[in-house]
């Protein structure tokens, strides 16, 4: 399940935009300029089904995203989709992992409260008895240099 964002959840002044997500889902998101720094030494981990529905999240995922575990499990991973992320990045992610390869990239994620956080993500297919049964994404702290490069590059990719 994925709902429009609720103005009551948002901390700070926000902008509003409608995102067209996979499966003809349209979602109204509200987003602010407030960045939550990536916590040192931690990994943010989630797993999904073959269609990108969240099946597992670790405690750091819950803390950083601001959602509860109940809100996350069963939701499409695009629940974190930020308006500043170019669609081409996610097309590349899906093309890569559906081929059975690993994908790595820098992602700006949306928090429940409208703020954002940057991650360096690696997505890999979960192969069990020779079959891909789902995907795992492991995020780590990105370098500021790399984030700044993305801040300059991503707006040119729309």
């Amino acid at each position, binding site marked *: 399940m994925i709902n429009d964002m609720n103005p009551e959840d948002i901390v700070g002044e926000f902008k509003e935009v409608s995102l067209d997500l996979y499966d003809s889902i349209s979602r109204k998101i509200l987003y602010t300029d407030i960045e939550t720094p990536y916590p040192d*030494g*931690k*990994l943010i*981990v989630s*797993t999904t089904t073959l269609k990108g529905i969240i099946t597992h999240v670790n405690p750091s995922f819950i803390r950083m995203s601001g959602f509860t575990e109940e809100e996350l499990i069963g939701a499409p991973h695009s629940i974190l989709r930020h308006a500043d992320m170019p669609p081409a990045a996610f097309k590349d992610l899906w093309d890569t992992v559906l081929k059975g390869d690993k994908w790595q990239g820098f992602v700006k994620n949306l928090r429940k409260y409208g703020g954002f956080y940057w991650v360096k993500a690696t997505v890999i297919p979960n192969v069990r008895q020779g079959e891909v049964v789902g995907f795992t994404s492991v995020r780590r702290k990105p370098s*500021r240099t790399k984030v700044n490069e993305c801040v300059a590059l991503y707006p040119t990719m729309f």
Partner: protein
Amino acid sequence: MHDDFHAQTDAIKNDAVDLIYANSFDAAMLIRDKGFLPLVKAKGKSDEAIIAVNAENLVEDVAHLEAGTKIAYTDDPDVKMMGMIMLEPADLDASNIESIVTSTNILVAKKLLQGDADVGIFLAEAFDDLSKMIKMQLRVLVKSEITDIHHSFMIGPKLLDKREEIQKVLLEMNSCEKGKGVLSSLGFDGWETVEVDEMEFMIDLVDALST
């Protein structure tokens, strides 16, 4: 027991072991290529890494380290991997650091104290076990909190029909005095079961991290 990581890895490759306490790197090969299954892991324990500097070093944040930094670490592959990930915020990687490989965590500490290395990567548990004297002269910049990466006791294909039996013996070790003694000398107070799914999850995690 094997005194270095390469000797153990070679022994696995040559099918010379049936029971093994393996790090997460070797676990991948054992499970996926060698038909091993997990038995147990140390209860409530995970493998974590620490990035430390000489206490007199002025650096406050890993992100402020620069290319050319001299980094000491042991040849334990998962600790090195976790440590290198914690150095990425400074844009450091194998291509722009100066590596100093030692055989023990104590030697990593020595390299820092003697000024031969700027940064040390430690197995957190080994860092905690350093003497007070040494620890006082070091400063921790960051400690990993991954929790999902751990050593596991594993069993090879020749013994698979004994898996449950051996698992039971290990799980009950903390209910007798002798077993308790052995466990406490290993540094923990019991084993807990590791399921195959949990192991596969860890292997995927390590796979993602080693990229």
